């Protein structure tokens, strides 16, 4: 028997005996697509308070200024999600001002440098950050974002004509756009679109200038993932590179870019 068949057979065998209830802290989520013979167990016999079945509860104790959408909406929309599974917040309900304010607060907390500019001021803001530096841009970066004076120091990268790693290492910085940003966690997500480029270009140069269009900002994590195609190469960035491995003391900047500049455009 191949390893594959044997492991799958072992798993089926392991799940096969449903003669006794399973010890579980939380009841399984509902009737969705259970494998034949898998134990359908109500919550375990221990009857602890914490072990109470998943309540389709609304949010307890809302955060100030964070109105919460009726829970379960997304769960109901998802055909496979179990009934009690999505009792958590799926929308923040924040307006644009609040989203920008929260995102800025969280980014600054991670030691990223943040600026909010109007569309007309974007090219100037990017130029200021990269003056005197050599940098790489993805081929799909909107040309109007780059001041013509930067033409001489710009290297363009694409999947078809990728810049070698050694060359990337010699460059000082990179300018990219971004796909989605999550305000509550201060997370910026790149999905490899032409205006964000290959993963290597936002990794090897030491200075990342990342543009966040205001319409790509969402409030909380579920809203962020709802906008993403997970089959694309995704990079979630929350502040510049950091380590806490020495006495739990946070040190910004290890292997990834040590400086993260975020320019929010609204």
């Amino acid at each position, binding site marked *: 028997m191949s390893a594959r068949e*044997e492991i799958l057979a072992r798993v089926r065998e392991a799940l096969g005996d449903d003669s006794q209830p*399973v010890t579980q802290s939380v009841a*399984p989520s509902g009737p969705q697509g259970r494998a034949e013979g898998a134990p359908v167990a109500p919550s375990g016999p221990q009857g602890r308070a914490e072990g109470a079945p998943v309540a389709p509860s609304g949010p307890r104790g809302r955060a100030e200024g964070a109105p919460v959408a009726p829970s379960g909406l997304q769960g109901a929309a998802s055909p496979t999600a179990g009934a009690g599974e999505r009792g958590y917040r799926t929308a923040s309900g924040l307006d644009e001002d609040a989203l920008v304010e929260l995102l800025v607060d969280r980014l600054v907390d991670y030691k990223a440098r943040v600026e909010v500019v109007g569309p007309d001021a974007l090219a100037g803001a990017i130029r200021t950050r990269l003056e005197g530096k050599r940098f790489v841009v993805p081929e799909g970066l909107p040309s109007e974002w780059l001041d013509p004076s930067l033409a001489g120091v710009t290297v363009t990268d694409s999947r078809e004509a990728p810049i070698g790693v050694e060359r990337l290492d010699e460059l000082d910085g990179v300018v990219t756009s971004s796909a989605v940003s999550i305000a509550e966690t201060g997370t910026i997500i790149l999905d490899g679109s032409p205006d964000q480029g290959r993963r290597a270009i936002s990794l090897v140069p030491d200075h990342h200038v990342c543009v966040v269009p205001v319409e790509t900002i969402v409030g909380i994590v579920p809203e962020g993932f709802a906008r993403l195609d997970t089959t694309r190469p995704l990079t979630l960035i929350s502040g510049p*590179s950091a380590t806490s*491995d020495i006495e739990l003391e946070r040190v910004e900047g290890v292997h990834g870019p040590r400086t993260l500049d975020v320019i929010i455009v609204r």
Partner: protein
Amino acid sequence: MTTVNLGLPAVPPRGFGNISATEPFPKAAHRELGNAQLRANLGHATHTIRDKRLRVVSELPDWEALRDAGSAIKTDAMSRLPELLVQFEEQFTARGGTVHWARDAAEANAIVERLVRATGSQDVVKVKSMATQEIGLNEYLEERGISAFETDLAELIVQLGHDKPSHILVPAIHKNRTEIRDIFLQEMPDVDPELTDEPRRLAMAARAHLRKKFLSAKVAISGANFGIAETGTLGVVESEGNGRMCLTLPETLITVMGIEKVLPRAQDLEVFMQLLPRSSTGERMNPYTSLWTGATSGDGPQNVHVVLLDNGRTRALADRHGRSALHCIRCSACMNVCPVYERTGGHAYGSTYPGPIGAILSPLLTGVEAEENSSLPYASSLCGACFDACPVKINIPEILVYLRGEDVEAKHGRGRAAGEAGGASDLKGNGRRRSLPTQMDVALGAASWALSSGDRLGLLEKGLPVARALAGRDGKISRLPGLAAGWTQSRDVPAPPSESFRSWWKKRATGGAPGEGDGARRGGAPGGGAAPGEGDGARRGGAE
């Protein structure tokens, strides 16, 4: 329902590798407890991370609902594991990746070695991974002439220090900055001899040390925090960017993932990407997370593999009571709140998986009756802090108690199932595992014989004066033989009375008035010197 006989053993084979303790926990713990530096380092680190975690968890109004969802998703995933694994394989393969299956540590190591050899490279860079720690991949490759470089700062410290990780998330938690500087000075070629113990300087030394390796590496090996069945997506959650370097720059990427890491839907990430960072490092989000699905043309490794690892997981899955231990997302919140871990450190647990989760996971992976891990379920005060902290609500204390029961059963020849690791030669006609009776069996058997009859007990009580002679002048026995020796290691036993209560009562009932002395004898020691009448009044007075 009827189970189809697949010709497999009733209980899947045990896992092997760095999940087996080499000495019993009490012995290891006793030694580690003598290390004051270790305790100081650990106390500082666990308290720091504990406070951070509480702060960011309290920010979320729906934390409990997220825990419930995380637990429910994992329960669902486990119950549908065969179908989800097959779906993951289809999706990952359809998007240009290759899936391998490994029954145990040896098979996984061999697959990885073969894949590395095929690239012609002698060096690999590694992203911190519990699965490859578990199977001892670094040591395996090293023995065969392939150098595996750990790139996570803490793993690097451990590797350069010729040490073992002692924590799931912060493997070098037992080292302080001075110890780390000393390791770097000694082991890092080209390091600045003026290196101070400032964390920033140390981190930059690691950056310089690894930079060239990242940029030239042809092969990387990683673990995975999640594998999404719906899309064939793999994910790694990290902080430093070393993960991104390994996951995107080399041509070949080999990922070793435990089969329990599969999640049904991409949407499930919205739950675990909230639970994991807050529980592990106490951050709202970790600095970097990478998600990849097979190979992406022109971006990142083009030669992408995943090794799906069993190594005892099906065994844990077959244990109905311990199954939820496989829900673990390796956040380490349980060890950061554990009073036992805080004092003994991770090395005392002997396994790649230390702390409360290790105390249940290691025995479940190797089989509860495995001698080397049988002391782990006792490595707990059962205070319940781990259960409260667990983001997927694994009821660790309850499983610990259950495993203690299993251990006792196994030791006394009443194993719960037929055909366990002992093999067919241990089986008798009734299908139960038998072994030689232990001292405890003999002692309890004797007690049962004696206590079941008044006459027998009376006979034995005649031996009391003999036992009394064992005590020293101070009326204490400080060393008992055999099984009881462990108990007297740190305690004295008071000398037994010269006369038993029953014999005293019999004499008294024939001589004295009924009812007299009643209160005294309940509290006092028979034959202790006090006359019945004296004690009586005093006791009553004291009580009322």
